[in-house]
């Protein structure tokens, strides 16, 4: 009798793990890397703005163009290595397939409607709703595109075929910027929701 209870408890606590250890590690390493990349990227942008505005010096990293470039080309290794680990483990463990698929237009619309009318449940954090699936799969794609466009800006001669794929050096700069904007927009929603549903934040820190 008592042994059954114990094993039941084990089963429930194992099932309760929402975010496995490797996900939590790559998540927080990525959080550091992406913040370094965005804030140093803003300082680099300011040296030759693409649009009619600059980023406030108070929210940029590096102090001047040279400092920002040092940060950007240091943090890129953290971002790329960590990102590759994430992609490899996500594919190998089947987590991507299990968590992010399938995504159907109908499902996205109905879950989005439910979310906006306050009828979306957060009871089971191990399962993503269709809107979450779309955003998390989408941000992975954006992450891949921002790295590839960044590489094509950094190496437009050595990686000239990649640069050409983006429509040339100047277009690649716009692609890189638009991806940054998409990530910042994602972060605003992502952080706001994590604070609105604190148990999701707890799961990303201690696993459940």
């Amino acid at each position, binding site marked *: 009798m008592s042994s059954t209870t114990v094993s039941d408890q084990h089963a429930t606590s194992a099932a309760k793990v929402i975010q496995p250890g490797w996900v939590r590690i790559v998540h927080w390493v990525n959080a550091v890397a992406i913040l370094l990349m965005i804030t140093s990227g803003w300082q680099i942008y300011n040296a030759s703005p693409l649009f009619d505005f600059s980023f406030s010096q108070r929210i940029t990293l590096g102090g001047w163009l040279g400092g920002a470039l*040092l940060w950007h080309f240091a943090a890129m290794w953290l971002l790329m290595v960590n990102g590759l680990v994430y992609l490899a483990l996500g594919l190998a463990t089947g987590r991507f397939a299990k968590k992010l698929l399938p995504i159907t237009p109908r499902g996205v619309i109905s879950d989005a409607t439910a979310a906006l009318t306050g009828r979306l449940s957060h009871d089971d954090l191990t399962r993503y709703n269709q809107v979450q699936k779309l955003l998390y799969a989408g941000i992975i794609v954006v992450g891949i595109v921002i790295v590839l466009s960044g590489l094509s800006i950094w190496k*437009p001669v*050595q990686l000239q075929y990649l640069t050409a794929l983006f429509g040339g050096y100047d277009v690649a700069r716009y692609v890189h910027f638009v991806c940054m904007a998409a990530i910042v927009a994602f972060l605003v929603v992502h952080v706001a929701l994590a604070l609105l549903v604190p148990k999701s934040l707890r799961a990303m820190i201690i696993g459940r």
Partner: protein
Amino acid sequence: MGRLRSLLIPGVDKQLLVKDAVKLLPDPARRRFIAGGASLGALTLLTGCDVSDSFSADQMLTRISKFNDAVQALIFNPHALAPTFPESAITKPFPFNAYYELDDAPEIDSKDWKFAVSGLVDNKKSWTLDELYQLPQVKQVTRHICVEGWSAIGSWTGTPLRDFLKLVGADTSAKYCWFQCADKDGYNSPLDMETALHPQTQMTFKFADQILPRAYGYPMKIRVPTKLGFKNPKYVVSMEVTNEYKGGYWEDQGYNSFSGS
């Protein structure tokens, strides 16, 4: 480090503080927290930086920049040519760019100017502009990319540097060609030998088929389409072939030294 220190509360022993904090955590979480700390320590080992009092972000960034120099030298393909463009793609007007205004750009009289060659070369003679103009020239229409991010397409005509290096009997197993310029406050820049020998690296005497104007580096510029703009020195007065890394105007201020594109 000074900034990190200021985050600590004076008079509070940080080890005791951590001990107290750990006591407040539930048991399994405590173990995870400590394991997490251990892997964070491992991470700092991996980055190769010295987490001691001598540690500073500047030192770490400088080391990574040197690592990036090595990575770029490794992926540099001496046979990969920078893309070329039709004359119709040339940016007009091509921007003047320097750390000073155009009025402060060097005004060089060709009668007084000589190109001095020194270091690991057989023939250390200085060259007049007329002598340099006798050398065979080729034209390229390539993209100039500034470290700031903007780019512009220009037309440059001159002598491939590798032909000149051969002509003066340079030791092409040396590491650098180090250029000195006539800019105010002095300008210099080292060019790694592999890039110096790249077929498109050029001693440039003409822009858009006209004698190089003052704005673009009269009488001679080194055009390197496989490098960022600041590695394309203008108003060049001398070249030293050397194994020694002698730094450069922008390189010494923190721009990545290889800065290949």
